[in-house]
């Protein structure tokens, strides 16, 4: 081609670009592989699974593992499937997310705008808290909750999730609020806002993007939690992850891999769903916040 350069530069498909697409494709296949195995295994019956062709598509579709995982599989001595665990997880996740995100937003707001004495120390404390592995605190917390009489109860596990979520969430909110123009806060103070009013009328309406981030973090974190649920929730409130473990870890009888796979997929549906719908909100929220002024 021997044309005079004019207008937009023509785009060529270069070797580098083809290579990049190939790399992306391979990566995608690699990460999709486990999901593929899970889905097809859940659709096979046990005979076919025993034939051990793990990557083959099922010869005959069998859906019986799904309802079984949901409502009949045995978790320990009870055979009600994952259903009770699902509702337990919701009972734990919803209040924990609301309480931890709400408190952290207030904390972050106070740290960012009301520079009280010792704010830096508190900020440092949050940093410290965010990086301590929580296993270290499980036993002391257990003793504290026991003394308070809320060990093995719903409020007990909600409190634990709130405590462990708050340091990192406070940091996230604080950093977001610090990036907001301080003049807005000053204007609101002159306009007669106090601590609560400014938070409610000025700060919260601007917090959508960061709140979505915080909610995603908390929902997935709390839903996927196993250890804290096992230790603190008590027998009546066992979350879905704990029941999933009980289904998969059978000590007697036959391991039903198709049921295991269905149960695993069911358990991971909520975080998956959250990622899919919030991804769009996430982008939208950030774009809305990017407008100057």
């Amino acid at each position, binding site marked *: 081609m021997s044309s005079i350069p004019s207008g937009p530069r023509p785009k060529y498909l270069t070797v580098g670009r083809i290579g990049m697409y190939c790399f992306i494709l391979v990566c995608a296949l690699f990460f999709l592989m486990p999901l593929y195995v899970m889905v097809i295994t859940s659709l096979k019956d046990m005979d076919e699974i025993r034939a051990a062709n793990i990557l083959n598509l099922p010869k005959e579709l069998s859906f019986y593992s799904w309802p079984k995982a949901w409502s009949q599989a045995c978790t320990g001595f009870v055979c009600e499937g994952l259903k009770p665990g699902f509702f337990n997880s919701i009972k734990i996740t919803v209040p924990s997310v609301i309480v931890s995100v709400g408190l952290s937003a207030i904390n972050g707001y106070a740290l960012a705008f009301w520079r009280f004495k010792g704010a830096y120390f508190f900020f440092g404390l949050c940093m410290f808290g965010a990086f301590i592995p929580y296993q270290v605190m499980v036993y002391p917390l257990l003793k504290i909750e026991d003394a308070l009489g809320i060990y093995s109860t719903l409020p007990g596990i909600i409190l634990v999730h709130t405590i462990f979520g708050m340091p990192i969430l406070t940091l996230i909110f604080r950093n977001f609020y610090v990036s907001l123009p301080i003049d807005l806060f*000053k204007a609101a103070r*002159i*306009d007669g806002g106090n601590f609560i009013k400014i938070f409610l009328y000025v700060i919260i309406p601007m917090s959508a993007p960061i709140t979505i981030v915080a909610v995603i973090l908390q929902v997935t974190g709390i839903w996927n939690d196993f250890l804290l649920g096992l230790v603190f929730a008590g027998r009546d409130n066992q979350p879905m992850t704990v029941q999933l473990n009980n289904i998969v870890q059978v000590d007697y009888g036959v391991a039903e891999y198709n049921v295991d796979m269905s149960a695993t997929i069911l358990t991971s549906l909520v975080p998956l769903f959250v990622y899919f719908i919030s991804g769009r909100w996430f982008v939208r929220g950030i774009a809305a916040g990017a407008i100057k002024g």
Partner: protein
Amino acid sequence: MSMKNSVEVKNISFSYGKTEILNDLSLDIKEGEFMVLLGPSGCGKTTLLNCIAGLLDLTNGQIWIEDDNVTWKEPKDRHIGMVFQSYALYPSMTVEKNLSFGLRMMGTAKDLINEKIKKAANLLQINELLKRKPSQLSGGQRQRVAIGRALVRDAKVFLFDEPLSNLDAKLRAELRYEIKKLHRDLSNTMIYVTHDQIEAMTLADRISVMKDGLIQQLDTPKQIYNKPANLFVAGFIGSPSMNFLKAKFDISNRNIIVGKKQIDISKYENINNLMNDQEVVFGIRPENINIEKNEHSIQCKVELVEPMGADTLVWTSVEDNPISIRLEGSSNYNLNDEINISFDIKKSSIFDNKSEERI
């Protein structure tokens, strides 16, 4: 303007940790006065304004507004309205809600709120914008709304924190004019922070020129321009800035000596305060230099010509000191032209070289 003080800043100090920003600063602002705090960035002018607003806690001293010691009062209880450089409009609220926010926080009756908004919107010509969000407004419109927000609160004192700095030159001139008109019509006390000397000169009743947390000069724009109190003020005010020549006073000839050149300063107002051999800095504004040949004129060469429309700036040098001369726009000089310049000594300023104070 009455003689009563509207705002009194009494010996205030302010420091961030160990960095002292204001030290024992006092300033009285009269009722209805337009006071401009002018200075380079970091001079403490915005800090002073924030202290008056109550957005920063003083380390020392008192603030009085309308005969009321407000030192420990919340910003909302100080009868002030404030306009910020970044507009600081609440992004989630419409213009109307932005304007009414302060009144709603105070629990004002709805009818009264509507009435006040209408009045402010008329005054600022933002009627059409009331239902819009700040993101749908241009910079100039945003700043109008921000001014309106201060207006509806019936503030006794208006504080402006570099309100025009984010706008382009044309809008800036437009809004400057409107702020001046607003002050003429409302005659509230206004305190206005800026680093722009044109804004300061055009708007102020009095300017307080600040540097390093200290007030260098507090006077009318005219006085500050014509009789700058020290070298800093002389250099800061005026664009292009005042020309400076280092010189030595010769009492017998009533001359100052710049290198090999002599300048007759017998007409200088305070010549009697000069001592023989005193080291001085001779300052003269570009418009006070004339191109004419007489017994005192100095011969030099045109080194650069800057036509600016209304006037033309000719650059030359005297004993290696660059000198700018402001001439009529129609004047016609070319590079390397030989010119003879003379100074209008009555309008010059002479500073002591050491203390930098005007003599």
